């Protein structure tokens, strides 16, 4: 049942460039995919290990700025720049994680929020490097690989789709492995995990680094796809927005980040002109979900299918 849905979703995703009439819509979908990759990253740390990293968008920014700067200032091609961007995000993630993970609960959220905002302040103020509020423009598209060129909307769409597919595959493989089950076990009962000989600090750091890797990947794809970049993509409000997508899609689930992002981005564009009013609905929705339906759309769906299977 679920496998069939995934196959249908993949088929639709591949067919979309032939289905939608305007590149405008293609860009919206690709943008949603990029956000979804970042939301998958947030899901690894919040959904699996139960820790809320409010600096998540800053790691997205690290990946994005690294790719943009390496391409425009150092003349690197996209592919090594993307690798370096992910690496930069993970290395910073390891540094921030090894300090912030010593704090607990509310302190962790406050600490990471502060780190995130500091990084965003640097993006805004280090004008010689980052271009300040204007940001970086004219980021070149990826060079061709043999006959494959990446300088149009459609090829870029497939590139982003590929990154999203890779992200979902990573999350799936990790979640069901011993490593992923250890993530959720620690969130469930930290003391028992310690008593079972699990080095909780190390496992949490692993999750944090994986999470920041995905944020960096999303950032790199953003810089590539849009060709320009500014500090407004890295602030606390962006993390909050990703959090909204995750909670509505379903915290801790495999489909949740994608479903939540697509549904909300879709609704926002459906309500043309309502764009700025959408949070009048989504804000209270978030409050209601967290109280009555903490597993979101995907969690509710798997509960339903489990009920069908039980019949």
């Amino acid at each position: 049942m679920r496998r069939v849905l995934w196959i249908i979703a993949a088929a639709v995703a591949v067919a979309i460039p032939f289905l939608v009439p305007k590149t405008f819509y293609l860009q919206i979908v690709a943008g949603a995919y990029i956000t979804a990759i970042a939301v998958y990253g947030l899901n690894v740390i919040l959904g699996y290990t139960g820790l809320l990293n409010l600096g998540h968008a800053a790691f997205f920014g690290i990946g994005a700025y690294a790719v943009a700067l390496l391409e425009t200032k150092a003349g690197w091609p996209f592919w090594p720049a993307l690798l370096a961007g992910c690496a930069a995000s993970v290395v910073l993630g390891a540094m921030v994680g090894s300090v912030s993970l010593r704090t607990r609960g509310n302190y962790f959220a406050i600490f990471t929020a502060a780190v995130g905002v500091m990084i965003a302040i640097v993006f805004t103020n280090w004008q010689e490097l980052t271009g300040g509020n204007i940001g970086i423009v004219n980021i070149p598209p990826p060079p061709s690989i043999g006959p494959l060129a990446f300088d149009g909307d459609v090829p870029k769409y497939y590139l982003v789709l590929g990154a999203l597919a890779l992200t979902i595959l990573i999350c799936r493989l990790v979640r069901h492995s011993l490593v992923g089950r250890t993530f959720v076990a620690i969130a469930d009962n930290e003391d028992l995990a310690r008593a079972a000989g699990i080095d909780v600090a190390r496992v949490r750091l692993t999750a944090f680094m994986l999470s920041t890797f995905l944020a960096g990947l999303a950032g790199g794809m953003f810089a590539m796809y849009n060709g320009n970049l500014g500090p407004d993509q890295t602030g606390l409000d962006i993390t909050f927005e990703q959090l909204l997508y995750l909670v509505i899609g379903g915290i801790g689930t495999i489909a949740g980040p994608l479903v939540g992002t697509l549904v909300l981005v879709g609704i926002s564009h459906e309500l043309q002109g309502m764009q700025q009013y959408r949070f009048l609905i989504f804000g209270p929705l978030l409050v209601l979900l967290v109280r009555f339906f903490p597993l979101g759309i995907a969690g509710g769906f798997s509960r339903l299918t489990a009920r069908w299977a039980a019949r």
Partner: protein
Amino acid sequence: MHLFFQELLNGLVVGSLYALVALGLALVYGTMQIPNFAHGHLYMLGAYVAFFGVTVAHVGYWPAMLLAIVVLALVGVVLERLVFRPLRNAPEVNTIIAAVGVLFFLQTLAQVWFGGDYRVFPTPYDKVVHFAGLVATQQQLIVIAAAAVLMVALFWFLKRTLTGATIEAVAQNRAGAALVGIDPNRVSMMVFAISAGLAAAAATLIASISLISPSMGFTVILKAFAIIVLGGMGSVPGAIIGAYILAFAESFGGTYISSNYQDAIAFGVLVLILTFKPTGLFAKGT
């Protein structure tokens, strides 16, 4: 030397603002362990209610402030009752997520109501005062004085009245307070009302010095968190002292080091403290 005293004055003004905002956050955290990430947006909403009072209802500056305090106190009560109380036994993270939902709502509400642009808040006290070679606006002096009055009043309320004592009792031991006949839910609502009311007062005081906008809550909330971490999460005097320390650090840091990174000082302080003391400064032994 003249510049020094001018910065000292600016520090006092900003510190008064920070103190009022951080106090509310500390009160809520101290009594309920709720990190109210929407607190900055309550402050923002307070500014807009007062703005409405002055520019639309034309009720005058002080009645507008009173209006903002009353409206925000009510908003605080509603938030406690509908959003935070049901989540008391939920994971800590859920409370933060709910607060994010609230702040999205409030920010959009302000946007829809008054548009997303920066607004100038008119003040009747815009005359410039000179003394001892220093320059201040009347409004700046009013901020300092009014904040002091509010803080003294709050202290008197918490320490000298029976109702204030119930807040302290709930903060120290919620279950125990319930046993001696205090209704902790009523106290929680009261604390949220005071907290939001203080934010509204702070917003009205400062709005006529700086501009107001729907996103003004974001920077303020993180600074307020930095302050209460500095002051020992949930401590009322700690929040006040922390607020002035941060304000002076920003004021002098901005002048003598770099104005671009003035805002980063708060977060730097926060990060440093939690790096070396992961359980917070002056944390109660765990």
